[in-house]
């Protein structure tokens, strides 16, 4: 099937539109010194800290704000309070041992990170995973896209005073937690991928439970839609707030729904398709105003599109093995390892010596729920990476926060920060 890309123009209710109250000045790159402190502000302005321990910063983000009354003159984010040196730890671990580090970065969509890492290493090693594994990973990634967007929806609702939405979305999230647990044994720290396949095949009855979720979730989504989309308070707090132009958004490296809300149709699933995404029938919603409301509409539509992909994946899920047939990287079955000596030696060698990757490097990115998730793996031929680098979408998205909120009100800081859908585990790594 040809690559299909439909550009949505998400429409807004013109009567309720607040429109353009916050207009960001375009970036004019000027060579030279950074902004100097104004001389005439003494006594009028104040510096305050928001965070690092503050519920509305969605983690341990600390924002130092220079305020003129309630208007933000300057915003200086401080990060690193959750720094766990994942990339350094990765250099001391085998290729497979890095998988548990990946889901601790974005604990809101762990399966996407598991899959992205495994895909990058497989590309480096030149491994083509089985057809079943591809479809299972597509299911994992789309399920976690919904999983992450639901958390975003609930917490952003709370930040803007719409508490009810949180109850709806977390009830649905709980069902996805159950699916995680049934498949991987863990609710958050899934660690489900291995190089060349998955930790295990889908358990019996899992697809039926997923089908039930796909059947019933749209109803909840429509209820949330009814609660928010035409809600006067929601529109007042989100339309025209935190707007960023398409040109600036690309320049700042925004990705995911934050970029598409500004009207740039960059979705890796369409632009550099992996795992046969070009054969799935789905659309990528594109906003036009780049404000919080458009980000909201984009994410809502993405959840609907993810449901379509999930349904197609369920329908086409092929049988066959989930792991590649390659004894250098895949463990023998537990039964075999416990019953014959050769399998046990094989098991021992793969675990103790690790999987070896050829000399080379690979930069591979997937469309995660938050934007472009790049995994850069560099190998010198050993069983551990020379360098494992994560291009986290949140890290780059949050860097644009000062640009979006300087000139806005203090209350908008909370709204804009929430709208970017950050996760500090991945920002601080």
């Amino acid at each position, binding site marked *: 099937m040809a690559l299909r890309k439909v550009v949505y123009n998400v429409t807004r209710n013109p009567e309720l539109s607040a429109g353009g109250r916050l207009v960001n000045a375009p970036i004019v790159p000027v060579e030279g010194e950074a902004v100097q402190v104004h001389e005439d502000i003494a006594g009028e302005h104040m510096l305050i800290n928001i965070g690092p321990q503050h519920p509305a910063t969605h983690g341990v983000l600390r924002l*130092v704000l220079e305020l003129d009354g309630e208007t933000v003159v300057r915003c200086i984010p401080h990060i690193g309070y959750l720094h766990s040196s994942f990339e*350094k730890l990765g250099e001391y671990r085998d290729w497979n041992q890095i998988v548990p580090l990946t889901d601790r970065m974005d604990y809101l969509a762990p399966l996407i990170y598991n899959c992205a890492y495994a895909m990058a290493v497989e590309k480096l090693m030149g491994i083509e995973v089985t057809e079943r594994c591809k479809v299972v990973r597509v299911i994992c990634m789309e399920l976690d896209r919904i999983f992450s967007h639901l958390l975003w929806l609930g917490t952003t609702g709370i930040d803007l005073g719409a508490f009810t939405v949180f109850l709806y979305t977390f009830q649905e999230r709980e069902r996805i937690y159950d699916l995680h647990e049934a498949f991987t044994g863990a609710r958050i720290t899934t660690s489900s991928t291995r190089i060349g396949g998955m930790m295990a095949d889908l358990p019996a009855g899992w697809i039926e439970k997923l089908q039930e979720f796909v059947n019933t979730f749209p109803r909840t989504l429509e209820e949330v839609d009814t609660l928010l989309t035409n809600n006067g308070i929601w529109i007042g707090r989100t339309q025209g707030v935190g707007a960023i132009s398409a040109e600036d958004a690309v320049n700042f490296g925004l990705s995911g729904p934050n970029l598409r809300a500004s009207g740039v149709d960059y979705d890796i699933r369409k632009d550099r398709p992996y795992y046969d995404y070009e054969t799935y029938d789905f659309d990528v919603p594109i906003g036009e105003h780049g404000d919080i409301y458009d980000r909201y509409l984009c994410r809502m539509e993405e959840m609907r599109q993810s449901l379509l992909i999930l349904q197609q994946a369920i329908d086409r899920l092929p049988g066959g093995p989930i792991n590649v047939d390659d004894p250098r990287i895949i463990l023998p079955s537990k039964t075999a390892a416990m019953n014959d000596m050769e399998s046990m030696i094989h098991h021992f060698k793969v675990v103790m010596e690790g999987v070896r990757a050829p000399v080379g*490097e690979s930069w591979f990115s997937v469309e995660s729920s938050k934007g472009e998730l790049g995994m850069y793996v560099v190998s010198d031929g050993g069983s551990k990476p020379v360098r494992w680098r994560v*291009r986290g979408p949140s890290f780059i998205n949050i860097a644009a926060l000062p640009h979006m909120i300087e000139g806005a009100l203090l209350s908008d800081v909370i709204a804009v920060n929430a709208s970017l859908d950050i996760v500090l585990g991945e920002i601080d790594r």
Partner: protein
Amino acid sequence: MANDSFKKGLEGLDAGAAGSPQEEPGVPPQAGELPAHPSIEALREEFGDAVLRHEVVAGDEHIVYVPPQRARDVLAWLKDAPGHQYDFLQDLTAIDWGNGRSIQVVYQLWSTRSKLNLRVKVELPLDSLEIDTVYYLWRAADWLEREVFDMFGVVFTGHPDLRRILMPYNYAEGHPLRKDFPLRGRFSRAEQTRRSLSMQTEDHYSPRELEIAHVLGQTLPTPFDEAGSADQQGQFGGMGGAG
């Protein structure tokens, strides 16, 4: 099988990681003709010998090596040249191969118009870890360059606000992602604890914030000092409005 592989998990905790033994860059020599990449052909015409090397890795990923002095010009040209226009800086990072080899700064580019990827690498010898910033080409480079500075000690000249980003501002143990950096840090655990307990208010702020506070005549609150912040709630208006 060597029995000491049991110990491998402990290797490098106190010393740095092993690093890469071979001296040549870690990409195997390419045999025969490389697949062509339009931007690399154009770069050769435009910059001539500034294109040091062209490699293809992992099947379809093109890497072009440029000398540090020309890197900014090459990147500026790639960003704006019609037909190329790599307007999206996907990533900016670095690789330390260890054993005294050059640190590679890696620019991963994507063009939203021509739908092309390109990776640009610059090799910096350890005794001159300096390169021009690309902050004014892509603002995405702002935090990415700060991260590379923080983790590898590469100085991006011209960056308006080059300071540590993930590690504390008063971190004195060096640059953690360098291969010679031990996994546990350079200082003893006791010294690390002592330093973290003796952090001053100023250590939590960047120089610019201290400058603003000085101009405003304001005493800065300590973000973690509960007793202190309770006193300062009134003085600074608290954070009640934000929640």
